[in-house]
């Protein structure tokens, strides 16, 4: 009976929050969203998932959510997972529309181009099929197969998977998430299974290896390591044989949310709900103790306990840095004390060069976070914040609700794992620009220092010695270009999102021209930083997309890029260069872009304004301090 009383206490605890949420939702108040998030983080049960989803649904039209259409092809019951998935998605500001395929109808859905799957036009498709449904012969019938039959079953399965995945790839532009196959926890042959290369486990492992290769070869196809997921939670705990036999639900009740969370780890990077920078505290976060009191000798940081826990966290942060996530410091300290520790302490794995921005002072943390965001040219919603002090976390949560405040539970020994599990730090592809981003921001800091010293803006621009290079889309650049259309929010005239496949289709069909711009300056290579897409109709060349990465805004590069588009349109024989400005919550920096360049407003409606330039009478000059080079290729 004691057990029940404990559970009851937990539910009493949240009932006030629930009542407050119901009151706010009834009054149509958006503030309820914050409480729903709080409730969901405190209590991730089936019933609170349903409660959270129902009330979010009511608020949905008033919230700033990214719409996302998700289809699940499955061989088992996933319906009870749906409320967890929807609640977690709402928490991540993703507005899910869901399509579940019929049981085991996935092959028909994949091969029929007119199937309901494709009619649904998903943004993402999850292929969740179990080993026992896909290859029953390798799950429960393996003892009846000889080694030749095992080999041919493996080959047939790989061929089937390859056929289905490539067919999906051809019929849909959606992102594909493919579950791999689970190995049995108790092989049919017992310990004998491990003694043979044609054993049950190694046969399934071989399929998984090939499946990994198939996913890597194709664009926007990602492997979900279901076998590792089950192993992480433990085979014996993950499964519920009773539920499998009665309602075809193989996953035990207590792990339904874990599968939903794993799917969300993929949806974060796909929908762009990601953090681009992590701002960390120092005392009792990066090291144990307080540097101002304990001194360089006294803080705890090293290979032995208790300093080892802090090193583990630093290792996790280094991994994020390698993933292209910027690191920054926000700490209440004397700057010199703190910097001395970062530069000199033998236990530090992170050094000053790893941090793209630092605010070490006695000021208010939310003000410091605002400044860090401005310095890194990021929106506040691109920041995550890690601090051991619950008061600081609460203050930031209240003042800056856009910032992702990492829920730290337990002590320093849990910090590293907590950081590693944050879905907003997940990435599905890494390109050169991501890995070098940390270095680029360091060059940026030097540029800012120069700007402070330069006499005039023009002198500053000249001193940068910018060399820009414009080229058509190539196989090498398409993934970075698609990434920019999905990530760029500030200097983006239309905020139209494209996948790689959509860009390739646009280019192939001749409907549009896609251009990219790269820029180098005296401090280093900024890489590919801008995308423009134009569409020609008669005597009009319309700018469908025009965007620049925030790290090069304000250097007149946009003028150089626009001057190229005007020249290109003129050379192609069109008379007018036109473009829409579609205002969003974030693209104010681009608002006066067309008017600044002498374009005239032609039309205005509730979506935005259309601007036009008569190429026969007006020119746009490239600033003479930018050396502009246009690469003419065959766009291949």
């Amino acid at each position: 009976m004691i057990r029940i009383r404990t559970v009851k206490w937990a539910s009493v605890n949240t009932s006030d929050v629930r009542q407050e949420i119901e009151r706010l939702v009834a009054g149509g108040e958006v503030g309820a969203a914050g409480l729903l998030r709080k409730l969901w983080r405190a209590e991730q049960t089936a019933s609170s998932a349903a409660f959270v989803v129902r009330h979010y649904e009511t608020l949905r039209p008033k919230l700033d959510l990214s719409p996302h259409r998700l289809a699940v092809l499955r061989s088992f019951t996933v319906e009870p997972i749906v409320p967890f998935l929807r609640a977690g998605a709402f928490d991540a500001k993703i507005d899910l529309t869901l399509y579940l395929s019929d049981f085991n109808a996935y092959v028909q859905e994949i091969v029929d181009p007119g199937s309901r799957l494709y009619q649904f036009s998903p943004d993402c498709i999850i292929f969740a099929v179990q080993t026992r449904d896909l290859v029953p012969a390798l799950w429960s019938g393996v003892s009846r197969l000889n080694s030749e039959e095992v080999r041919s079953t493996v080959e047939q399965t790989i061929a089937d998977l390859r056929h289905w995945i490539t067919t999906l790839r051809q019929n849909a532009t959606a992102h594909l998430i493919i579950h791999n196959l689970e190995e049995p926890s108790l092989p049919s042959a017992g310990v004998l299974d491990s003694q043979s290369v044609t054993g049950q486990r190694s046969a399934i492992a071989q399929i998984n290896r090939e499946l990994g290769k198939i996913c890597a070869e194709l664009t926007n196809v990602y492997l979900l390591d279901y076998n590792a997921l089950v192993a992480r939670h433990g085979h014996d705990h993950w499964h519920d044989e009773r539920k499998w036999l009665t309602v075809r639900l193989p996953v035990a009740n207590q792990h339904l949310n874990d599968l939903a969370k794993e799917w969300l780890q993929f949806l974060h990077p796909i929908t762009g709900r990601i953090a681009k920078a992590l701002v960390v505290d120092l005392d009792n976060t990066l090291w144990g103790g307080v540097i101002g009191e304990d001194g360089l000798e006294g803080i705890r940081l090293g290979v032995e306990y208790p300093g080892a826990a802090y090193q583990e966290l630093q290792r996790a942060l280094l991994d994020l840095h390698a993933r292209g996530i910027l690191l920054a410091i926000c700490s209440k300290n004397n700057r010199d004390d703190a910097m001395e520790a970062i530069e000199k302490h033998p236990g530090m794995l992170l050094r000053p060069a790893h941090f793209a921005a630092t605010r070490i002072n006695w000021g208010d943390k939310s003000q410091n976070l605002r400044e860090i965001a401005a310095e890194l040219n990021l929106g506040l919603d691109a920041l995550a914040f890690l601090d051991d002090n619950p008061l600081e976390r609460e203050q930031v949560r209240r003042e800056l609700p856009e910032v992702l405040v990492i829920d730290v539970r337990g002590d320093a020994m849990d910090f590293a794992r907590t950081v590693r599990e944050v879905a907003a730090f997940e990435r599905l592809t890494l390109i050169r620009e991501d890995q070098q981003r940390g270095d680029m921001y360091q060059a940026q800091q030097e540029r800012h220092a120069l700007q402070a010293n330069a006499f005039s803006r023009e002198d500053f621009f000249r001193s940068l010695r910018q060399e820009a290079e414009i080229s058509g889309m190539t196989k090498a650049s398409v993934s970075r270009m698609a990434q920019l259309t999905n990530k760029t929010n500030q200097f983006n005239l239309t905020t139209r999102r494209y996948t790689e496949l959509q860009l390739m289709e646009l280019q192939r069909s001749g409907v549009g021209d896609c251009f990219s711009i790269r820029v180098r300056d005296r401090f280093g290579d900024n890489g590919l930083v801008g995308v423009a897409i134009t569409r020609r109709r008669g005597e009009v060349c319309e700018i469908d997309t025009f965007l620049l990465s925030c790290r090069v805004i304000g250097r007149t590069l946009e003028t150089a890029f626009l001057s190229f588009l005007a020249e290109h349109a003129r050379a192609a024989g069109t008379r007018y260069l036109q473009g829409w400005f579609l205002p969003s919550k974030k693209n104010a920096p681009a608002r006066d872009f067309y008017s600044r360049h002498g374009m005239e407003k032609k039309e205005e409606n509730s979506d935005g304004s259309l601007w036009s330039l008569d190429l026969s009478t007006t020119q746009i000059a490239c600033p003479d301090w930018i050396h502009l080079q246009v690469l003419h290729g065959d766009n291949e």
Partner: protein
Amino acid sequence: MTAVLFDRVRRIAADVLEVPEARITVDSSSENVETWDSVHHLNLTLALEQEFNLQFEPEEIDEMSNLRNILSVLGRKLKPAS
């Protein structure tokens, strides 16, 4: 105890069946609550298993298609071992 049990079951049933708590009475069943279909029935039994930290037999799950029966199944299972 019975009143407390009813309150807990009512809250979970209301959450999972997506209706206000006041809509759930001891007479609620899959016949008179529109959202109580087979998927919601499965979700409801899973939520109850989670809340009370127990497992229902397949026969019990079939039996639990109204509040009265849910309460009686739970009453049986929660009885302290004597």
